[in-house]
């Protein structure tokens, strides 16, 4: 049984008004435990609406969201529980930091779960360790942190609830290259050490190629493609038409192919470097 199963969910805004929009149309997919899935799609393709339906914030107008086989919208209690089980980290989560210290901010979620003070303390320490927030920052105001640290502190607040699945909406938007790299390696560590399940929404094709086991592509409220990074990025024309792209490294390989150089596909920096250097060595070239 998949950890999360979405069956034919739909949602629209502004019904019975001239401004009616169907934001999500009849979407179905499943996520297995331990998977890292990236969702890509143009702005307004319905990604954020979809994420809110996965954690009990927004009830689909039709269809079901099953977590461990149980419908999270059965009743108010199950929907409330889903907010802890499915940890949703919004875009620019640092705007939601509010407490006087980082420790208090990270503790907010676990506190609302009604956990004991010892358990809360334990979880705060663990979560800050997972995101790589130095222990001496825990008693500092979150507003005194750097941009990347603020972002990690906010993500720690979600991880401290120990959700069964972590959803990150554009976790690297607005960060400098070092900040982006920290967040991505943090996600990698979190998955490796804890077998965590992660769903990540991103506008960066390079990020999707580098960290996802599988990619879902949304367009106009529908789920139009689903597959491995190799499968998805081999559809370069369809992606461009949808306002998306292929990773920059893949573009270079494609350009060389169009000049008659025979090269296999590659989507990440590491693979592209290997393919290109093999391309020179092959045929006794180097």
């Amino acid at each position: 049984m998949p950890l999360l199963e979405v069956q034919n969910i739909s949602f629209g805004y502004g019904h019975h008004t001239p401004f009616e929009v169907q934001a999500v149309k009849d979407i179905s997919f499943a996520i297995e435990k331990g998977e890292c899935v990236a969702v890509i799609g143009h702005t307004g393709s319905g990604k954020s609406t979809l994420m809110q339906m996965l954690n009990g914030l927004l009830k689909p107008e039709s269809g079901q969201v099953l977590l461990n086989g149980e419908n999270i919208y059965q009743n108010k209690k199950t929907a409330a529980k889903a907010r802890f089980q499915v940890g949703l980290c919004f875009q620019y989560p640092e705007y939601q930091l509010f407490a006087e210290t980082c420790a208090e901010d990270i503790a907010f979620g676990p506190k609302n779960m009604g956990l004991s003070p010892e358990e809360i303390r334990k979880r705060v320490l663990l979560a800050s360790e997972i995101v790589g927030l130095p222990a001496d920052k825990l008693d500092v105001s979150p507003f005194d942190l750097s941009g990347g640290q603020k972002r990690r502190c906010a993500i720690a607040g979600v991880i401290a609830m120990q959700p069964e699945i972590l959803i990150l909406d554009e976790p690297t938007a607005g960060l400098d290259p070092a900040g982006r790299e920290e967040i991505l390696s943090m996600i990698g560590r979190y998955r490796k050490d804890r077998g965590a399940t992660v769903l990540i929404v991103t506008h960066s094709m390079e990020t999707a190629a580098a960290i996802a086991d599988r990619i879902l592509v949304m367009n106009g409220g529908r789920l139009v493609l689903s597959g491995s990074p190799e499968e998805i990025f081999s559809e370069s024309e369809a992606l461009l038409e949808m306002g998306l792209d292929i990773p920059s490294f893949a573009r270079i390989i494609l350009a060389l192919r169009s000049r008659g150089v025979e090269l296999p596909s590659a989507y990440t920096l590491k693979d592209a470097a290997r393919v290109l250097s093999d391309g020179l060595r092959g045929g006794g070239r180097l």
Partner: protein
Amino acid sequence: MEQKDLISFQNVYYAYEEEAEEPAYALKNVTFSVKEGEFLFILGHNGSGKSTVAKLANGLLLPTSGVVTVDGADTKDENAQMDVRKKVGVVFQNPDNQIVASIVEEDVAFGPENLCLPREEIRARVDEALRSVDMTEKRHAETYRLSGGQKQRVAIAGVIAMRPKCIVFDEPTAMLDPKGRRAVLHTIRDLNTRFGITVILITHFMEEAAQADRILVLNDAEIALEGRPREVFSEYELLLSCGLELPDTAKLGKALQESGVPFPDGILSPDEFLEAYMRLRKDH
């Protein structure tokens, strides 16, 4: 002919809490200038002082010490303030925070209306501004229905309608999808090359900066590096220590060198990369 300086920063310091005993400086002793018609990129880690530069450049903030001049006028001169803001427009990261009206052309007209210009003049400026960002077809559209990239172009049109000499873009593509990014960058380059508008572009995307006339790198409130893209991106170690990286093309070139391929240094654009690779294939 020597181009004249449009904006100049001379030994500029800026502290957000001036009154504090040990003020934390967002900018320390920053000196640089931007020539008329230039396309300058500013790179730097989060909190390095980039956005403070943007706000100082059009008088939204005034330096704690040092001097900022726009077209020769000191931004501290109250009589020059209105003129400074007209000459230097700013476009920020989040398009949603910059749209004020519900219809595209009304939004673009907001600035000129506040200048109390005659009706025909406003009409002409709005039409011209929408044309220059390629949004004429959407002039009657409702702003909230636009995509992120379209909204950002409307925000840019709103600034263009003020006929500024310079536009400062503060991470204009950070929130956009790939198509929106491409469209906004294309618009910005067009403004510079076709309309001669001086551009200062602040970004975290190294690929964008590879096409600059000149790059300024800020690190912890100070200028760490200044030069042409080729010069700046050859300082790999320094860039890393500033929280930055190389453009993807250069990263790939470096990875090839590390795997033993005699790939040339200083390759920045995809076209250069292709040329260099094809040459290597021929040679071997």
